[in-house]
C-alpha cells in the first residue's frame, strides 16, 4: 500500500453563501464519503480544511491580503489515503462530493525523504 494526497480544489466565490440546510447536506455527503474510505481502512490522515481568510507573502516584503475577490481552483483542504496504486486512489476520488459542486480532486504521490541519502 502507498499513500497519496488528495487536494480538494474549487473556485472560491464569496458571493455564494449556502443555507444552513445546504451546509448540513454537504457535510453529510463529505462524512459519508470519508467514512466509506475510513471503513476500508484506507484513510491515512484526516488532513485539514482551509478557511477563506489568508495572506500571501512574496519577495521583497510584499504581503498581500486575503480573502480574495475571486480565485480559480483554490485549495480547500486535503486528506491522505492508502491505495495500492494511484489508479485505485483515483477510483476512490470519483465519489468525492466536491465533484458535484464544480470542484476537482488533485491526486499526488508522496516523496519519502530519506535523511541518510
Amino acid at each position: 500500500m502507498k499513500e497519496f494526497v488528495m487536494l480538494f480544489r474549487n473556485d472560491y466565490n464569496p458571493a455564494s453563501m449556502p443555507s444552513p440546510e445546504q451546509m448540513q447536506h454537504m457535510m453529510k455527503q463529505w462524512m459519508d464519503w470519508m467514512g466509506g474510505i475510513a471503513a476500508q481502512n484506507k484513510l491515512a490522515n484526516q488532513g485539514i480544511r482551509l478557511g477563506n481568510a489568508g495572506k500571501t507573502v512574496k519577495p521583497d516584503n510584499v504581503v498581500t491580503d486575503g480573502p480574495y475577490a475571486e480565485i480559480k481552483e483554490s485549495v480547500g483542504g486535503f486528506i491522505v489515503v492508502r491505495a495500492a496504486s494511484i489508479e485505485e486512489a483515483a477510483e476512490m476520488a470519483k465519489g468525492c462530493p466536491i465533484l458535484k459542486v464544480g470542484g476537482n480532486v488533485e491526486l499526488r504521490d508522496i516523496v519519502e525523504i530519506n535523511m541518510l541519502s
Partner: protein
Amino acid sequence: MQQQELIPHLFRTEYRKIIAVLCRQFGMEQIEVAEDIASQTFLTASETWGIKGLPENPTAWLYVAAKNKAKDHLKRNDLFQKKIAPQIKNSSSSELQETDIDLSEKNIQDSQLQMMFAVCHPSISSESQIGLALRILCGFGIEEIANAFLSNKETIGKRLTRAKEKLKLEKVKIEFPGENEISNRLENVLTTLYLLFNEGYYSAAKDKVVRKELCLEAMRLAHLLTENENTDLPQVNALLSLMCFHASRLEARTNDDGEIILYKDQNTDLWNKELIRQGEYFLNTAAKGNKLSKYHLEAAIAYRHTQKEDTVEKWETILQLYNHLLQIQYSPAAALNRAYAISKARSKNEAIKEAEKLDLTGNHLYYSLLADLYTNIDDEKALHHFQQALLLSKSAADKKLISENIRHLKMK
C-alpha cells in the same frame, strides 16, 4: 454473613486493597512479597476465625494482620536491614519499628490508582495488562483469570510471572504519572479497561456470572478514575458512560444457556434503566473540553442503542457517528456496523455496495452481515454468504446462530 461466605466476600473486596497498598510501599521489585503477605493474611484469617470465631470487625482485623505480617517481613528481610533501613533512618531519622503500613481509605484508593498506571504499562502486552489488572486490582485467582480467558492455570501463571519480571526489568515505578505524561499513560489505562470490559461482554466463555463480573470490575476501575481529580477527565467519563450503556443490556443479551440474543431480538423490558440513566449522567459529564475521543463517539452510539424506537433518524445519527469514529480510529467491527447502519438509515442496496468494498473476507461477521443484507434481495447469495460465515466461525454459539439462519432461509 456466615464465615464460609464472609471470607470469599472479604477476599474479593479487601485482597486487592491490601495488595495495592503493600505493592506501592515495597515497590515493583517486591511484588511477589506483597502478594504472599496478602495471601497469608487470608490464610491466617480462615485458620484463626475457624478456631476462635469471627472477630468483631473482620476488615479491621485483616488490616492489622496484614500490617503485622508486613512489618515482620521488613524486620526479617536482610536486604532491608542492610540497605534500605539505613537510608530510611538517614532520611527521616525514624526508627525501623515506625515504618507503618497505611491502610487508610485515602491511601488505599491512591495505591490502587497508581497500581493501575503501573500495571497498564506499555512495556507489557495488553493481554498481560488485563491479566495483571484482574490479579492485582480485582483480586481474581489465577484459575478465575484462566476461566475468563478460556485458558489454563499454567499458561496464565506463566504469563503473569513474565509480565511481572518485565515490569521489574523496566523499573516501572508505582506512582502517579507527571502532569505532562498523564494523558498518554491514561490512554493506555483506558484501553486496558476497555478491553477488560469487552472480554466480559463479548467473550466466548459461557459462564454468564464470570462474564458479568469482568464487566463490573472494568466499570469499578473506571469509577475509581472518575473519583480522583487528576483522572476525572472527559474521556474517562465517556468510557464509563459507554460501559454503562452496554452493561444495561447484559441481562437481555444472553439466554439462560448463555447463548447470545441479538439486539433486534432482545426483550427490552430486561434493559437496565438505572444503568442507562447512569450512562447518560457520565456522558453529560464527558461533554467538557474540546477533545472528542473515540470513547465519546462510541458512548454516543451506545446511547442511541438504548432507545427502543427503530427510526430512520436514529440510524442516520448512528451512521454519522460511525463515519466520524472510523476517521478517528479504524476497526473491522466499526466498519461492519457502519454498513449495517446504512441499511437501516438508507437502503439495503446502498449498504451492500459499501459492505462489498470492505476487505474483511477472513471474518465470519462480514459474511453474516452480507447474508443479512442479501436476504429478501437475493436469497441465493444470502445462503452462500451464510455458508461462508459458518465455515469461518469458531465458537459453538456462533455456529448455532448461523445454522439457524440457514435453516430459516431454506424454509422460506
